[in-house]
Structure formats: structure tokens, C-alpha cells
């Protein structure tokens, strides 16, 4: 068996370009997904039906549809309704971000609901508005509890970035496919890609374990 890692390493720059693409999608989807998720999560927590029902519909739809299907829909189907094309980056980001928003909305809602009712009372009694109570009292306490689950979400988002390769967005796996098809060394190439992902995600995964343990201890 001849192992040919040399050609993989020779194209380290191509892999680097891919990694940059991965990070770009990750950052965009993380910010948009977790940001939108907070808004939807607050909607899920609301008592008014006109806020609660759309938020629930959003969460149910985007949690129960596969991300790849959404990405493909945004890339191939949506442009039929618009006068312009949608780039692979936009389509992939939309798909991943909306999915992440739906999952993180539930995390936010759970976190907010886990805060003892007495804290709302205490804030209310001082004359705080809903927004002030949320900002100063409820969210700061809730964030700590939501951190492990949100970190897991971030890890999932990072892994989902590979789906963008299906619509030819230049990220790490896409570059791997390119190299493997040029040099006929799928073992070395895909192993390298897997190792790269592992090396990047491992610290995050460890951190999420530690956060979970710390949370369990403080409960």
C-alpha cells in the first residue's frame, strides 16, 4: 500500500482556503442563528398569541426539516421567485442559520423559564420594566445555564458547514474532494480532512463537557 500524504500536504494552501471558507460560514451562521434564536426564543416565551404562534411555527418547521434540504431549497428553488441568484454562501448560511435559530430558540426559552419566578417579582417590585428586568436580572442568570447547550449548538454549526460543499461552496471538505479527485488518494485526503476537523473541534467539545459538569455541580 502506497500512502501518498505528500500530495495532500503539498496543497496545504488549498486546504487553508477551504478552512477560511469553513470559518466564514461558521461565523455568519453562528451570529445569525444564535441572534435570531434569541428573538424567536423570547417569542416562544411570550404569552401573547400573535407572538407565540409564529415563533412556535418557525421552531417546529426548522427543527423538523433536514438542513441539507433547506440549503438545496434556498439555492435551487428560491431563485425562481427572485430576480437575482443566491450565492452558495448565502444559501448555506440561510439553511444553517435558520436551523440553528430554531434549536437555540428552545435553549433560550428553557433557560429563561428556569429562572425562579421570584426574580421577576424582585425586579418588578423595584419598578423595572420588562426589558430592564430581562437585561439586568433574568438573562445574566439564564446565560450561565444555557452555556453548555449553546456551546453544543456552536459545535453542530461547525460540523454543518460541510453541507455547503454539496452546492460547491469552497470550504474544507470541498477542497478535500478536489484534491482527492485530482490525485486519486481519497484515504489520505479524507483522513487529513477528518483530522483537521477533529483537531479544531476537540477543544470546543472538551470545554462543553467541562461547562456541563460545572453546571451539574452548581445545581
Amino acid at each position, binding site marked *: 500500500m502506497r500512502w501518498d500524504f505528500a500530495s495532500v500536504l503539498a496543497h496545504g494552501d488549498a486546504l487553508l482556503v477551504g478552512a477560511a471558507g469553513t470559518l466564514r460560514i461558521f461565523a455568519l451562521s453562528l451570529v445569525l442563528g444564535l441572534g435570531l434564536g434569541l428573538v424567536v426564543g423570547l417569542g416562544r416565551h411570550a404569552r401573547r398569541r400573535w407572538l407565540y404562534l409564529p415563533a412556535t411555527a418557525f421552531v417546529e418547521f426548522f427543527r423538523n426539516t433536514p438542513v441539507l434540504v433547506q440549503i438545496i431549497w434556498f439555492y435551487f428553488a428560491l431563485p425562481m421567485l427572485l430576480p437575482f441568484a443566491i450565492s452558495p454562501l448565502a444559501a448555506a448560511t440561510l439553511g444553517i442559520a435558520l436551523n440553528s435559530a430554531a434549536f437555540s430558540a428552545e435553549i433560550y426559552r428553557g433557560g429563561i423559564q428556569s429562572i425562579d419566578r*421570584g*426574580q421577576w*417579582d*424582585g*425586579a*418588578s*417590585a*423595584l*419598578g*423595572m*420594566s*420588562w426589558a*430592564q428586568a430581562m437585561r*439586568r*436580572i433574568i438573562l*445574566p*442568570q439564564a446565560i450561565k445555564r444555557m452555556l453548555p447547550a449553546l456551546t453544543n449548538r456552536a459545535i453542530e454549526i461547525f460540523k454543518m458547514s460541510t453541507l455547503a460543499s454539496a452546492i460547491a461552496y469552497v470550504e474544507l471538505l470541498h477542497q478535500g474532494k478536489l484534491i482527492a479527485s485530482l490525485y486519486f488518494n481519497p484515504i489520505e485526503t479524507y483522513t487529513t480532512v477528518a483530522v483537521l476537523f477533529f483537531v479544531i473541534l476537540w477543544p470546543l467539545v472538551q470545554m462543553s463537557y467541562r461547562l456541563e459538569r460545572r453546571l451539574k455541580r452548581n445545581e
Partner: protein
Amino acid sequence: MTILRAVGLGKRFGDLAVINGVDLAVAKGERIAIIGASGSGKSTLLRCLNFMEVPDTGTIELDGRAIGVDKGGRRVYREFELTQVRQRVGMVFQQFNLFPHMTAAENVMEGPRTVRGHDKQAARERALGELARVGLTDKADTYPAHLSGGQRQRVAIARALAMDPEMLLFDEPTSALDPELVGEVLNVIRALAEEGTTMLLVTHELGFAYHVATRVIFLAEGRILEQGTPDQILKFPKEARTRAFIESHRQFTF
């Protein structure tokens, strides 16, 4: 001078009428103790006075101004106006409800800073002043998790005082405390009373009520059954139910 006047207050939870027609006028400097059995509506009544619960019927006037507007026979309240009321009527809870992610001083500072918009330095000075008033200067930078129950409640009182309320509502302030910690909180409340703070106190501490209150109200089934001076209600109650209640709370005679 009447600070607060409530007329025809009513509040239902589902089918149950917890408050069933209460009229109450609170004058400046009055110390009113509200007593009654569990389920008599004491806490709900108190919570209506600062709109932590919104009354279904009746009106509440603060300094002569009625809160809310009449809309087609019903009273409608805007959240903004209610937060204004709560800045003027302070509340101390049975479960303290201190903010665990802030130190004692930060808890006391929170009202002036976030609600009133004072700057950090001024708020801290005020907070230290209030903490000194309740005897906890040395605990200013301690987190609630490291304070005893009595200390936490005193911080909660300081937090309410920092808003310069026209009147203080105490919702069973010592019911959640271990017996040996009750005294330090009652002493703080007594000191406030002696300074002339207007207050309503829902409590089971009948002895304390006797010595500190200017008026005692006995609540039963959401209505005021009897009210009067401490002597009139606690020593010589007229109604049979009031008598039964007092008897059942008499632990010792000295």
C-alpha cells in the same frame, strides 16, 4: 394625609374570588398590620396595592390620582404607569428574591442605577448608606449565597429603601426565616416604624404587630372583617372569627 386609597378592590383567580370588595385608606405615617388565616387573601391584597397583581374590580388612588383609565366600564392599566407606581411603593418579599448574581451593595444599587438612572458612584454611596441603616455595612461586597436568611432579608429591605418609596409593603417578611434570625429583621422594621415610615405589614408575628402597628386589619375570605387599634383587634376582638384566629396563634402568654 392619605397616601393610598383603594375602593371596592376585587381579584379572582379562576372561579375563586380571593379579594371580595376591600376598601382601604392609608395615611402618611400609618403602620398597618394585616392578619388572617392562610387563603384569606392577605398576600393578594398586598400585591394588588403595588400592582404586582392587577385588580379585576375597584380603583386604587396614589396621592389622589387614580391609577389606570376607565374603558367601557372596566379599568385598563398601562404597564408603563404600573412601573411608575412600583417605584413609589416598595415591597419586601417572604422569599427575599435577592439577585444572586449581584453582591449586597449591587442589589441595593440596582434600583437607583437601572430604574432611576443614577450614576454608579452616587448609587453606591446611597447603597452603602442604606446597608448601614440595616446594619450590614461589612457585607456590602458579599454575595447573597454567603449571607444568612436574616441578612438577606435586611439587604432586601435596604434594596426597597434605596428607591425612596412613599410606602413599604412587607409580605410575611419573617415567615421564611429560622426562629433565631427573625429578631434581627423585626428590629430593622421596628426602627423604620419609629422613623415614621408608612408601611403595610402582612405577618403572623402578632406580638410584633401589637407593639409596632397603629392599625390592625383582620382579613377573612377576601373581606375586611374587623379593623381597629392593636388593642381593639388583638386584645379585645369583637367578631367570633377574629377571636378564634387570635386564640389559635397564642403560643405563650407572658
